[in-house]
């Protein structure tokens, strides 16, 4: 997947987790926590959805990489390149 496709994939997961959220205005370099008030339970959900949908495993110590859209895409790019 290209970075653009990965971004779409993450957006899709976010819209699944927070269906009421307007994601069209999402800023890629501002944290999800700040913009969407996601809590630790929600971050775990992003991790589990990535695993469920794309078989991507993210070790717990690397969850911090999922802070914002841009850091998430950077982090996932090598892991999802082959998909």
């Amino acid at each position, binding site marked *: 997947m290209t970075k653009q496709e990965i971004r779409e994939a993450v957006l899709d997961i976010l819209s699944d*987790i927070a269906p009421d959220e307007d994601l069209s205005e999402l800023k890629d370099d501002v944290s999800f926590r700040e913009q969407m*008030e996601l809590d630790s*339970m*929600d971050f775990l*959900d992003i991790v589990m959805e990535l695993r*469920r949908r794309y078989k991507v495993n*993210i070790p*717990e110590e690397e969850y911090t990489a999922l802070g914002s859209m841009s850091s998430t895409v950077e982090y996932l790019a090598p892991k999802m390149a082959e998909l």
Partner: protein
Amino acid sequence: MYDTIIIGAGMSGLSAGCRLAHYDKKVCILEKHSFIGGLNSFYKQHGREHDVGLHAVTNYAGKGEKRGPLNRLLRQLRLTWEELALVPQLGSKIVFPDCTLGFTNDFKFFEEQVSKNFPKEVDGLRKLVSMLVDYNQMGECQTDVSAREVVCSCIKNPQLVEMLFCPLMYYGSARQQDMDFNQFSIMFRSIFLEGFARPWEGVRVLLRTLLERFRKSGGELRLKTGVKRLLMDSAKNVCGVVLDDDTEIEAKAVLSSAGQRETLRLCQESLGDKSVMDACKPGELGFVETISVLDRQPKTFGHGDTIVFFNDSENFDYKKPQDYCDLRSGVICSPNNFAYSEPLKEGVIRITTLANYDLWSALRKEEYNAQKKEWYVKITEAVSRFIPDFRPYVIDSDMFTPKTVYRFTGHENGAIYGAPNKNYSGTMPFKNLFVCGTDQGMVGIVGAIISGITIVNKYLLANSN
């Protein structure tokens, strides 16, 4: 072989099931009764649908607000705000001798009420609010701090202290006379800081939404399927259940919403000594509820309050009564008085008071029915001191007692709020066995749903990462 078997299709069991099924776990919910809901259910009588349990959903948050348990559960269950169809309350009251405090879903209003009636206590109230244990830090253990001690350190007027406790105890305390400060914080936030709401159609909307979500995700529900005991392997690890008809079903884990003691009883053969069971005290607090259907809407005869918590005595006694019911205090709810866009079809008044399980359960059928009739009269008479007399307009009525609660929920002593000591961790003395629901320490409908979600996330989904 199931990944998880869930015992009980109430709010916590269903929401736990939704999470597991969503993440492709093979999950089956076993429900003893022929309908779902457990403590929060509904039934039909004389062609009318009545709610049981739910007066109101607490923890109200408006659309677009992102914080709080309600929004957390929406995200976790992939539901939209609209799916719960919550409509906020009109306004509720706490009525004590010579003093009435109103409250709405806007805490400022309650602060004003306190400052009008207890001008010296407003700072104390604010101090108390600042001390509440935050939802986000909420967690693994009870604080083992007496809520009374904390509240009395902030608020000096004894009547105001009782007035704060009254709604919180009635809507969720499994303990008599005092609460753990953690429980107090949860209840205070859910009622005073967030507030009440209800779907126009009542509790069935929530149950239907959860059930649809569960089924859509591939979950399996079996009704009329009681569990006799848990299956254990040679190392005494839970590995499934044995049904009432002796069928065995294997599972990697069992999540029980039956209650702490009730779940231990399912493992009795493997428990060995009785000390574990003895250490887990049953709840003592039973309740009756009367339901009166009226030929008109309550507001037409001057009753516009959503919920009225009343107490007629100097002290507020939240404990097991000596008599069948304690008429000194209680809760009056009118499901009509929410901000619906169209009124409910009929007027309804529901009244809850404390009740004595032992007395009610000892009665034989005829005596039981006679006592029910007698106490219906006494209760409706007692509350006419607090709201306009609705008795002339009653066209149908029903009543349930702690005996009814026991029959439909299996909770010992008909204790709606379960055991006085909560099991916040949700773990049990056996491997692969977990509890969720009332006895895990979350109360109310939103609490029950969060409980199911939390325990699943912690123990049944976490290891798949």
